[in-house]
């Protein structure tokens, strides 16, 4: 039985198609202004890529901030439940999922059956999220994909305030003008993100094994910095950014 999951995030839209517990395909695109169109467009594209007729998709579940704008979905489920289901699908041993997306950072605690036991989300502030890193990459004139590798060259991370994205950007600009090495600033940015997210997660009864999902999981600098704080290995699947969509497709099986 084939199912699909559509995850419309604040920056990117993700899609996944599953058949009997196997991932047939995934896709990622930018959300842009029209969340509704983004969902329909990616759905058409992934089905066309996989050569699947829409009639053969049993059910579709949508998630993410644009979840209610996907009119062809059979059900809209929040990203908390979807990331929980996706994480459990990828590795049933996982108990804590840290998801850092475009505007949200969240932690989810799973029970041994993959049900969500507890969760916490960032308050209304983008510090410590993917958008925060994007703003910093722009200020640094560095490709965000290179952030992780560059930060590994630093032995002395700069101190960056983690209170506010806008103020942190001015701090970064001021460090650049002082001639602070780029790797130190980037490492400092990762520390700031990790510090904020870690403090939030500590409110929960979070324990290993830990998995990180969402776009920021691709940044090895942030992952390493969080691992240091947890004193534990953090698993990052190759599907990290697609985890919400995969979880949605998993949940669609039960509809």
């Amino acid at each position, binding site marked *: 039985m084939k199912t699909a999951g559509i995850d419309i995030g604040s920056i990117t839209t993700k899609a996944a198609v599953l058949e009997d517990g196997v991932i047939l395909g995934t896709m990622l695109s930018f959300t842009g202004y029209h969340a509704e169109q983004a969902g329909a467009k990616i759905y058409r594209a992934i089905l066309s890529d996989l050569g699947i007729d829409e009639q053969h998709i049993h059910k579709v579940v949508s998630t993410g*901030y644009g979840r209610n704008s996907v009119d062809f979905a059979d059900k809209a*489920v*929040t*990203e*908390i*439940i979807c990331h929980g289901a996706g994480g459990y699908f990828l590795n049933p041993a996982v*108990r804590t999922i840290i998801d850092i997306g475009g505007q949200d950072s969240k932690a989810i*605690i*799973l*029970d041994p*059956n993959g*049900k*969500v*036991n*507890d*969760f*916490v*989300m960032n*308050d*209304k502030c983008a510090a410590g999220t993917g958008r925060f890193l994007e703003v910093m990459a722009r200020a640094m004139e560095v490709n965000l994909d290179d952030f992780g590798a560059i930060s590994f060259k630093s032995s002395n991370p700069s101190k960056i305030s983690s209170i506010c994205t806008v103020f942190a950007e001015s701090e970064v600009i001021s460090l650049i003008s002082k001639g602070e090495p780029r790797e130190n600033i980037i490492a400092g940015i990762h520390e700031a993100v990790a510090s904020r997210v870690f403090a939030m997660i500590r*409110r929960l*009864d979070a*324990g290993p094994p830990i998995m990180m999902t969402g776009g920021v999981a691709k940044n090895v600098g942030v992952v390493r910095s969080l691992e240091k704080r947890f004193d534990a290995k953090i698993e990052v699947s190759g599907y990290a950014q697609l985890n919400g969509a995969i979880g949605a497709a998993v949940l669609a099986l039960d509809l």
Partner: protein
Amino acid sequence: MMRQIMTEYYICAKQAGEKGDKVAWITSGGPVEPLIVMDVIPVYPENYGAMIGASHMGGDLCEKAEAMGYSGDLCSYARADIACSTVEGGPIGGLPRPDMLICCNNICSTVMKWYEIQARYYNVPLFIFDTPFCHQGMTEQAGVYVRRQIQEYITFLEQICSKRFDYDRGIEVGRLSLEAQRLWQQVLDTTTNRPSPMSAFDAFFFLALIVTLRGTDKVVDFYNFLLEEMKERVGEGISAVPKERYRLLWDNLPVWYRLKWLSEKFSAHDACLVADTYTSAWSRSMKYIDDNNFIESIAEAYTRIYLNIGVDEMAGIIIGMIDKYSVDGIVMHSNRSCKPYSFGQYDIMRIIQKKRGTPCLMIESHMNDERSFSESQISTRIDSFMEMIKQGGSLTPGGLY
């Protein structure tokens, strides 16, 4: 009926000056009964704040206060009230001018500066009733300290009103106040029924009388009527939420400008807010009141209210409510306006999860400043929380690890 009582109350307060009656502005948790004994009309800027919030006037007034120089971090009741005093307008055309201000700091410290500002603005006397914080119970010295202030308070009123305090009338007012508190608690307790005949959203509305008019017979009459109505609803199986499946507890003040939205949101998940820590605050310290020595014993009752006690005792109260009202989940409003209420919520959450395993959700807002309400973020949190409860993945008391 309730709207009529509140309208009459505010008309009476607004006409006080013409009739030669005195008006006192008083904090919501302040000892109001001595004012009733002295025929002073009590007016509550906080109740008015709720009216401002429910009328969606909070944002503009808060903005005005910020333009006057007050920080956006300050309580949104305080900002709205301070700003409202300087403009012609607000709900019911503004509050009647006070002849005196009575400030009891059992609810927070902000009220002291807020009332000092208003005392200077209106150039009227201010009485501060100082209630020491009860970290672990109340000490004997604290008892002596607050009881002495009751006497000072009475002397203050006697001087302003130029008449003696009638202690016999005090007994009668005390009886009515206590009766109103008992009835209010009985009304709130009708929600122990499944389905619940009312929700916290109804309680937020009916609360106005116990706040503003306790000590008068109007409140007793109305709550008697309301109690009968709720009992009838229980008898007929009429519920507040059409398909009640989940029973939740609300912590902290309401989000006044979003009552309808929140009510519909929870209702859509078949969830009823059957209890809250806020509306029951006006009847919770009844146990400290001595019927035969009302005026003196209210000193202790007003000192030991919910916001003036330690985190352990607060958690104990919530756990008691979880059991009493069969609560499936807790929604905590981290209210940036009300620091004493919001401070400690994470600790309380931990204690609850350890002892009962009840799922808890935290949402963030300002009770009266609609500019601070982020709809899509709060919507996602509530939806996620309800999905989690529906999944049935309840926490194991004592923690997972």
